[in-house]
């Protein structure tokens, strides 16, 4: 899930991928976040082991060059944070804590590589893992990321990022390729500046279990 979320947050923080005249390269060039940023989200997961879809909500934070935080506030508080080397996950209510290195051997953390590529606008790196299909139409833009056959062993999910023309990303759909499980993220407005910056630091400490 983390790879989807990271990819998602980066994309949603992007300046609008605005005009149909734009191509992938020009969009990617604008992708790199330059300041700390925060945006709200609503998540719906469709898992075949659940009787009904599960919903959650909270905020995504990102800060260049590589920090990412997902703060889930409902149904309960869960913090997930990552930097370029490590990943932390902390569910205080259920006492679940994860602290691991980001590794190509681990499909769960593999999305970080995509994250790094996206944040740097590194199309080449991204294209080593995904086949990218950028399209526009009917006032919307869409970026479809299809795992390449050679990265099949990493079990990357398929992702689709979309938004209105001239606007930031509004929706991300993450679809597992080996079953019907999928998640949808609806994104709100973003805020930038010093407040998200200080919140990120506090949330990373929380995810690490320092607080």
């Amino acid at each position, binding site marked *: 899930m983390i790879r989807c979320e990271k990819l998602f947050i980066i994309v949603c923080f992007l300046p609008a991928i605005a005009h149909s005249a734009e191509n992938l390269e020009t969009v990617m060039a604008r992708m790199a976040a330059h300041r700390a940023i925060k945006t709200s989200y609503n998540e719906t997961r469709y898992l075949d*082991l659940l009787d009904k879809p599960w919903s959650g909500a909270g905020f995504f934070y990102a800060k260049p060059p590589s920090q990412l935080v997902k703060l889930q506030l409902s149904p309960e508080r869960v913090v997930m944070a990552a930097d370029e080397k490590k990943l932390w996950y902390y569910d205080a209510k259920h006492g679940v804590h994860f602290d691991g290195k980001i590794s190509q051997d681990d499909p769960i953390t593999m999305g970080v590589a995509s994250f790094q590529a996206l944040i740097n606008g590194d199309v080449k790196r991204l294209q080593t893992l995904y086949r990218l299909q950028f399209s526009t139409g009917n006032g919307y833009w869409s970026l479809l990321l299809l795992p390449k056959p050679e990265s099949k062993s990493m*079990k990357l999910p398929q992702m689709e990022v979309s938004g209105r023309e001239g606007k930031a990303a509004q929706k991300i759909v993450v679809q597992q390729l080996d079953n019907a499980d999928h998640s949808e993220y609806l994104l709100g407005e973003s805020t930038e500046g010093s407040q998200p910056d200080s919140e990120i630091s506090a949330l990373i400490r929380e995810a690490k279990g320092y607080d």
Partner: protein
Amino acid sequence: MPVKWRLRLYFLLLALAITVTFFIVRVKADLSTFFVTGTSTEEILLANEMQSGKLSRQYIASLRCDGLESAALTSFVNRFSDSVSKLKDVQGVWQPGQNQQLIDKLLPLYLPHASQIYSLEPEQYLSRLFTQEKLDQRAQLLKTSLLSLQGRRVKQIALQDPLLFTFSAFEDLTKFNQTTPKPSQDYITLIIESSLSGLAGAEQHQLQATLQALFTEQNSKIEIACTLEMTGVPIFAAATETMIKADIQRITIIASIGLVIVFLWIFRSLTALFWVSLVLLSAATGALLVTTLIYGYVHGLTLAIGTTLIGICVDYPIHAMVHASATNRELKEQAILKIWPSLLLGGITTIIGYTALGLSGYPGFQQIATYAGTGILISLLFTRFILPDLMTDRPVRSTVNLGMERWLNWCDNWHGLAILFVLVFATGAMFRLPSLQWIKDLSELTPEMDDLKAQDQRIRARFTSIEPGRFILVRGDDVESVLQKSETLYRLLDQLKDKDALASYIGLYPWLVSNALQKRNQLALDKYWQGNALELWHHALEKHGLSVRRLGDIRPQEKSHLQPHEILMSPASRLFSSQLVINDGRVMAMVWLAQHDPDSVRSAVNKLEGVSYFSQRDILNKLANDYRMQAVKMLFFGLSVIFLLLIIRYRSPANALRVLMPAVSAALFIMTGLSFLSIPLSFIHLVGFLLAVAVCVDYGIFFLENRSGNITLTYHAMAASMLTSAMAFGSLSMAENASLKALAVTVALGVVLGFLLCPIFIRPGQERISFADRH
């Protein structure tokens, strides 16, 4: 046999022996011969495992790349690992505790057996679990886990094991991995398992050079310089072997040059040097041949210590040549024949000393004793049967004045005072003996390895909090019995954890579970799922919005038990390979311990049969003590046999005591000196005293018997022998190996002191001819 033919036969035999030796001799420098083992079966098995088991073949490599971003770091480590794994002498490369792919591979193996491995106490576990409240919590855990970061993996587990028994089984292990603080996050640890024996120093040295070269090659491809540090048995083995080889080379060169200089100074004759060289060649060839025939090889350390043989072997011909040089040409053989009984007795006492050394119990010393004993015997035979023939019709130059006459005169004039002084000093030394300091830990015998030991501790501390030197050993005749005993032990250890006497432990559970426990787990579960437990579980699933259709069936799917051989053949075996030893029909399991109270753990564990608490430090201390006691025994045994031999020879205990006193006093004075200098003694020092005594007794015999009838000449001959012995043993002090240095100090000082004390303790009362008159 005519002289001419006797010499021809000698040279023919020598040539033949050299040829045969050249073709059959095999010199080994690996440490296995000198590897310390214990006396109990477990200690020997552990020692075998340390020498040839998986543990001994593993390197722990610690990589650090400051400033390298994650993807590049992963790529760097993967490239390095790939290139290492392709080496023909490498069996595997992996990251401990980080191999997610390995866990993914193991899930299909363990999941079908989840209902057989979930608890060490299944009845208690299930009675706590099968209440509505606890099942609700379990369903909640399942849901939380499905929605967590690890959701995909949890789904795979839940489909076969909805009650998450696998979580329960691995709970302690997971907790250990997650809660145990890793002192450093800045390093990446790789385990590199080689296919070579860990103690094959030369081959391991080559492999280490290759690993470094591969690392440098990968390093050159990135902008940031990464560092690589390694530890493990092969690192110590290679370093030790390199040190031994360097020591052999250094000692041989220094001893040879030193002896040639001393010899030429005393005899001023190249011809005499040639004769002595022949003794050395004969003794070394014979010693190599006999040692190879008996043991199949000659160890490098045998050669290093055997080099000191040069000093002892040449004692006899030198003694003979000094006496011969003082007579007419025609009387040379008679002069040698005259002193031959003394030489023979001296040789026998020295061989007794080396035999006692061989019985000291320290590994490898038997070979040194064989090597030295053979060399001495050949030297004696050469002196008696070949040297006189060589000297016939050849002039021997008179030897240089070594100034011993003045010491003899002083001892003569001040004999009463001298003996009083020595006896007072010896009595004082006796009082000092109880305050002697002893080395209590065998590892202190290798201070030259301190840097490597510190590096080893540093690297290990980076990735584990397990105490490497202390563990619990479970032993039995087969895997099943060992697993059953281990499971009883884990229950005991869990109680110690509750009492805070033990922070944590790593055993074989749940990787390996006994058939008995698997059966017990399954039987316990069978009682529940047929009752209302199923209804309770369905209710819990519904409450948390989980699919009853997909997760409601909790009937055990697998009836057959998970067998040890299945696990041992799987990648899981890598995770506990260092904890299970199967050897010659004996099985041992090791349980690693984190921080703990040794006394509590030891007393708890001792209640179980076939289970014992092991502390590497305790084992080494015990071994050091055992060796010391054995060395003391052998020192007294050697002294007693020599004393007995001397009594038989002289039919006088007083004379026997006089012969022994210089040697014993010398050893006593050196011990006192070391005590005043606060230098702790080890069994190596005792071995040195034994050798010094064996050599010094020769001087006592020569001096007491004074077969030439000229005590000045006899003492002069003894001085020449003493100088070469001291030179040879003294050259050992040039070694890097601390044990060889200890031998150097005790033996070299011992022979000098023993020689000087002879005129004080022994009064031969024979004719005195001054050195000047003699010439």
